[in-house]
């Protein structure tokens, strides 16, 4: 039930009520509302119960193992939240002058620096407000670089077929054409196909390494050389940075641009689709094009660098300085870990993934790339189970919910049929991993003996199997007053 549907005239939640009527006399008359906003009128207790119940319906990292591949659903340490909530941070107005913002600017400056060092890049901008925006900033910088050199025939971005769908979308948004590069049977980029594809039209390649199939591309040096020799640039999608944090640096692999998903690798909350942060790092030749603002240090003082200081910048991605609260949480997380802690993140993330991979393989599940070691994630394919029992990957995923586990990523990447992409992260205990393996083994036994149990799952959740086809065909996204009166 929506909270609007509980509304009754005259009810009121004192805790949420404003202390005074707002004075709107300084707003132009044409911009003021003619009618009252259709806000729900409920008691304080109703509001508390409504949102508490909603939160209980959720799977979250605070309540369940959440091995959602390619998403890095790791624990968000409470210290990051409590320190980022200090009144000095919370109460700062985004338009406060530099002289009143030195503390937070020091944090941002240091975060720029730590991200720069851990990725091996030349400079970092924190401006993009999400991973996809970081991608867009990255390809826009590639375009700005070629355009500034008069190299305007470079209009094609190469994207491996295992890439995140956002990669080709970002390239198209920045005005490029996309050419797909196939993946070889061992999970690496097909290097011969890449050599055939590069040329004077190549602006760059967008690559995730480790890739979305969960393996570290052994040919990364050859890929970098091939693209660079053709005059293109290398873009690193930081989605899988958790696997190599503190161990291998994209800058050392030859990448020219990288975006980082702070909500993945640096443990800021994923909740509700945002807010996120997708800082970008660049090699020296792309530095002039970084999105603004940047924080620079002059003696003991921190300053913003904006459009007038960086005339070649691709511009702003967001208002003010980006998602400060998220950047702060990532900063605190990075400071709590230090360089040594970051190495432990990737060591345990890959150890946990390889432990799960070995246990599931020993239990008879089919690995998509059996000859490869997992990075921080890996793929099993349920083709055999689908063929023999008619129970597909989605049925397994839904049944896992009944066992108290969030499902892994299903049906991605597209090139592996009936796949589950499993990423345990470094946060989980051996007991949690063992419990997940046991659940999958039980579900496979159910698939054989009682396949309907899987096909109708989940059985224990607040909602049963949703009609996602109808949901996609008949979008119903916004509540309207009229619906309440129907």
């Amino acid at each position, binding site marked *: 039930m929506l909270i609007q549907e509980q509304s009754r005239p005259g009810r009121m939640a004192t805790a949420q009520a404003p202390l005074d009527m707002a004075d709107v006399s300084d707003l132009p008359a044409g911009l003021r509302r003619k009618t009252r906003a259709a806000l729900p009128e409920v008691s304080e207790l109703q509001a508390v119960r409504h949102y508490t119940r909603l939160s209980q319906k959720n799977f979250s990292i605070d309540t369940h193992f959440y091995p959602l591949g390619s998403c890095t659903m790791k624990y968000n340490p409470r210290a990051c939240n409590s320190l980022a909530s200090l009144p000095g941070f919370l109460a700062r107005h985004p338009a406060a002058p530099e002289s009143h913002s030195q503390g937070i600017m020091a944090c941002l400056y240091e975060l720029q620096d730590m991200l720069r060092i851990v990725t091996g890049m030349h400079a970092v901008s924190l401006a993009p407000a999400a991973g996809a925006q970081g991608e867009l900033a990255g390809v826009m910088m590639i375009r700005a670089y070629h355009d500034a050199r008069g190299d305007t025939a470079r209009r094609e971005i190469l994207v491996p077929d295992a890439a995140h*769908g956002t990669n080709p979308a970002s390239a198209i948004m920045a005005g490029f054409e996309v050419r797909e590069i196939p993946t070889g049977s061992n999970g690496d980029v097909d290097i011969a196909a890449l050599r055939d594809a590069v040329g004077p039209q190549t602006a760059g390649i967008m690559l995730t390494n480790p890739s979305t199939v969960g393996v570290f591309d052994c040919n990364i040096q050859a890929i970098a050389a091939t693209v660079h020799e053709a005059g293109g640039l290398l873009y690193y999608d930081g989605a899988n940075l958790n696997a190599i944090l503190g161990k291998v640096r994209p800058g050392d692999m030859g990448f020219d641009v990288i975006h980082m998903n702070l909500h993945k690798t640096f443990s800021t909350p994923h909740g509700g689709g945002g807010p996120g942060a997708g800082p970008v790092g660049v090699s020296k030749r792309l530095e002039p094009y970084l999105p603004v603002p940047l924080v620079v240090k002059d003696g003991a003082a921190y300053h913003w660098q904006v459009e007038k200081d960086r005339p070649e910048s691709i511009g702003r991605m967001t208002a003010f300085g980006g998602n400060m609260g998220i950047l702060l949480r990532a900063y605190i997380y990075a400071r709590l870990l230090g360089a040594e802690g970051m190495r432990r993140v990737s060591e345990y993330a890959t150890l946990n993934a390889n432990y799960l991979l070995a246990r599931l393989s020993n239990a008879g599940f089919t690995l998509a790339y059996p000859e490869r070691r997992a990075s921080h994630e890996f793929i099993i394919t349920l083709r055999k189970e689908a*063929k023999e029992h008619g129970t597909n990957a989605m049925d397994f995923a839904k049944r896992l919910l009944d066992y108290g586990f969030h499902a892994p990523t299903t*049906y991605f990447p*597209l090139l592996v*049929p009936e796949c589950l992409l499993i990423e345990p992260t470094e946060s989980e205990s051996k007991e949690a991993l063992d419990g997940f393996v046991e659940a999958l083994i039980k579900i496979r036994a159910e698939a054989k003996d009682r396949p309907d149990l899987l096909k109708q799952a989940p059985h224990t959740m607040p909602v049963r199997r949703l009609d*996602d*086809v109808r949901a*996609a*065909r008949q979008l119903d996204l916004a509540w309207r007053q009229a619906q309440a009166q129907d």
Partner: protein
Amino acid sequence: MSNIPADLNYTESHEWVRDNGDGTVTVGITDHAQEALGDLVFVELPEVGKSFAAKDACAVVESVKAASDIYAPVAGEVVAVNDALDDAPETLNADPYGEGWIFQLKLVGDDPAAGLLDPDAYQRVVDDEA
């Protein structure tokens, strides 16, 4: 078992091609393709009048699982599109070789089967994926 009509030609990317005998061909996606994609929720049709080379991406189908490009099986100019799919993409699942056709091309070349697979060859492609 997916249905592979004997009177059509096919591509490795799972389009079917019907020779209309008048210099045009009708194109859709195969039964195997609609089965693998699952329930379709959206079809992006090409523009009438636009020309494509063989293997150019020219339309998009989106299911609850994935969005996939549809490629022009042969070079040609789009002369008709199945507008009914805008409102009823599920037709593609229900009747992939009939009401679920996607577009028609006026051929650039003379051979409506140039570079295409015959039903037996397409059957082998499907078998290899199973």
